[in-house]
């Protein structure tokens, strides 16, 4: 079946389209190749195409763990940072959804005075520089005793994520007419049933996309995390920044960089399956 599909696809693609796909794949995968090689290198100098000395050759002689030995050792704090990043990202996404779903419904369906001004106002946090927000929030959070806590970081992460989420969900709601919900009601569904069986399944692809986006934004915030975590709550971006601030990647920095991309990739794969199966499989039924 899959093979048939491939043949069908390839026969439909013109040579130019195939070339175009290859170029895009190259752009996406290309940067990973030197990163993977670097993560196994000990000494990799220009103009050598491959490292002159590999990490494994030096492994026994080294005074401290090198390359992947360092990345996977507790010294690198990668595990702690990954757990923190995923934990903060998940909570931020959940809170963000809870705030934005009702807000988007109102913004998409109701008309009220000052609506467009309000929409503009919602995007403001994206315009103010992160450093300014960070310092100002830190001052406030210190007084509230929230600085250096997970609560503080999560609250701060809501600032740049809510504007994105609201915009995305508003667009999704706009695409979803009231007709389906009214149909269901006419057929005798109560409000809860409408929400559970009609509205949510139809919104789901948009919600998953928004949640994915929020999660990715949250897992990439460096400055706010550093300030409000007072440097003590390590996440993948803060860990990576302290490693690569130099501008050159050594083997352990390359390894950490690869690890940093993992949560996003895993999430993309999961959500890809989820959108297909849940929304179009169960939601509409056969």
């Amino acid at each position: 079946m899959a093979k048939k599909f491939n043949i069908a696809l390839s026969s439909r693609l013109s040579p130019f389209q195939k070339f175009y796909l290859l170029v895009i794949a190259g752009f996406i995968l290309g940067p990973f190749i030197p990163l993977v090689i670097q993560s196994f290198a000990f000494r990799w100098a220009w103009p050598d195409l491959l490292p002159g000395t590999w990490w494994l050759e030096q492994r026994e002689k080294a005074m401290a763990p090198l390359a992947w030995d360092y990345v996977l050792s507790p010294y690198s704090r990668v595990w702690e940072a990954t757990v923190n990043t995923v934990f903060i990202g998940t909570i931020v996404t959940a809170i963000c959804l809870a705030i934005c779903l009702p807000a988007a419904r109102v913004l998409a369906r109701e008309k009220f005075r000052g609506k467009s001004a309000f929409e503009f106002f919602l995007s403001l946090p994206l315009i103010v520089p992160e450093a300014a927000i960070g310092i100002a929030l830190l001052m406030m959070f210190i007084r509230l005793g929230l600085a250096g806590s997970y609560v503080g970081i999560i609250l701060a992460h809501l600032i740049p994520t809510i504007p994105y989420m609201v915009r995305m969900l508003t667009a999704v709601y706009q695409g979803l007419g009231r007709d389906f919900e009214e149909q269901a009601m006419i057929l005798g569904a109560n409000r809860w049933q409408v929400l559970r069986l009609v509205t949510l399944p139809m919104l789901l692809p948009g919600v998953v996309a928004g949640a994915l986006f929020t999660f990715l934004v949250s897992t990439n915030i460096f400055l706010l995390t550093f300030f409000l975590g007072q440097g003590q709550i390590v996440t993948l971006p803060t860990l990576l920044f302290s490693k690569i601030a130099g501008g050159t990647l050594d083997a352990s920095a390359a390894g950490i960089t690869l690890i940093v991309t993992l949560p996003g990739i895993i999430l993309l794969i999961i959500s890809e399956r989820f959108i297909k199966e849940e929304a179009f499989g169960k939601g509409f039924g056969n």
Partner: protein
Amino acid sequence: MKITAIYTSLLALVAAGAVNADTAQFREAFLAGEVDWAAVEARAKDEGSVNLYYWGGSDLLNVWMDRVVAPALEGQGVELNPVRITSTKDAVDLVLAEQNAGASEGSVDMIWLNGENFATLKRQDALFGSFAPLLPNAANLEWNPEDERSVLNLRDFGVETGGAEVPWSGEQYVCAYNSDRVAAENVPSTFEALRSYLEENPGKFTYIKPPHYIGNTFVQEAIYALNPDGTGAEPFQQSSDQIPAAELARLITPGMEYLRDLEPLLLDAAGGSPRYPEDNAALDGLFLNGEVDFSCTFGLYSVATGLATGSYPEAAQQFVFPEGHMIKNKNYLAIPVNAPHPAASLVLANWMTSVEAQASKLQQTGMPSGIDIWKLDEAGAKAIAEASPGLVGVDQATLDANAAPDTNATLVDVIEATWLEYIERDSSDPIETIVTRAYENLTK
């Protein structure tokens, strides 16, 4: 859930208030010499942990912190919380933000720093006070101002330390060359020789861009070496209050002009504008790749450790440059005034200045000893000597003979501003105007 959070934070604030008075009391009593060391250690156990903020870009240092320092403090009942930061200034900003927010108890117990960062904390009155001479291991350091070797313990970039920071590591600005690419007889030892070399081999050198302190140091060395009076580093030990702008401008003009003339010979200058790397990791990359033939940085043992970690080319050798003006300084551990665990910080500071700590740091990270060898007993001096990863191509006596002191921190600001204006922005104003302007900004 939010309400609970607010309640807990209010409770925390109240509790913090109670502890604050107590930490302030402890600070005063300790600085007055009324607390004996056993009491400090007992209190450190009660405090239970210590937050050390340090630049986290070195794997070797990170491993050493977790592998050696943490267990050593554990033995004294204190948990080490090593906080790795991207730039030391971030930690300084954090301390100041917390201080300005009125929290007399912050989150930073100790910072690894020197120069401008220390001067900033000192100016803002954000330091714990003169703790260093009161540590039991202060005996490992020279504090007698009459002994000229004490200067690096008493002054940090010309700013009086006042015992508010304790030396942790000593460094010297040393250059390395790649002996696969440069013959030994062509290695320059003066700025004139460097220029001749670059005329033969254009583009094979660059230095780290100011305001990075390593770049600033290179500029200072050029200024010392080309000082029109021939007095080297001497006039630059004064602060900006003591030396008038016009006089400073006169002294730095030959150095600045040399650096401007050098620009067309630097890396990538043939393609339009020269390329200055942002920090030493970037410079190490250029040196490893053979894009430049020389690499100058703070690091007595940088070649030995660079070879051990693969970040230096295999044929790297150190050499003397510039003769008689190789800046030497120390870096330090400071305790902020709002440190939440002051006694634990003192215990950490004391451990860090022990022979045991210094020898293992030297051996495992290649960071030179910050304590003074001549103050140690024979066994201690031997332990440090044996831990050294070794110099490559030069010896200690030659380096000592060519050592020069750092520039006063207030002048560093002026020189840095002048470099940025005169060389980076290519200002057509005369140097004196630029220096005067920098002086005015300084007082603002």
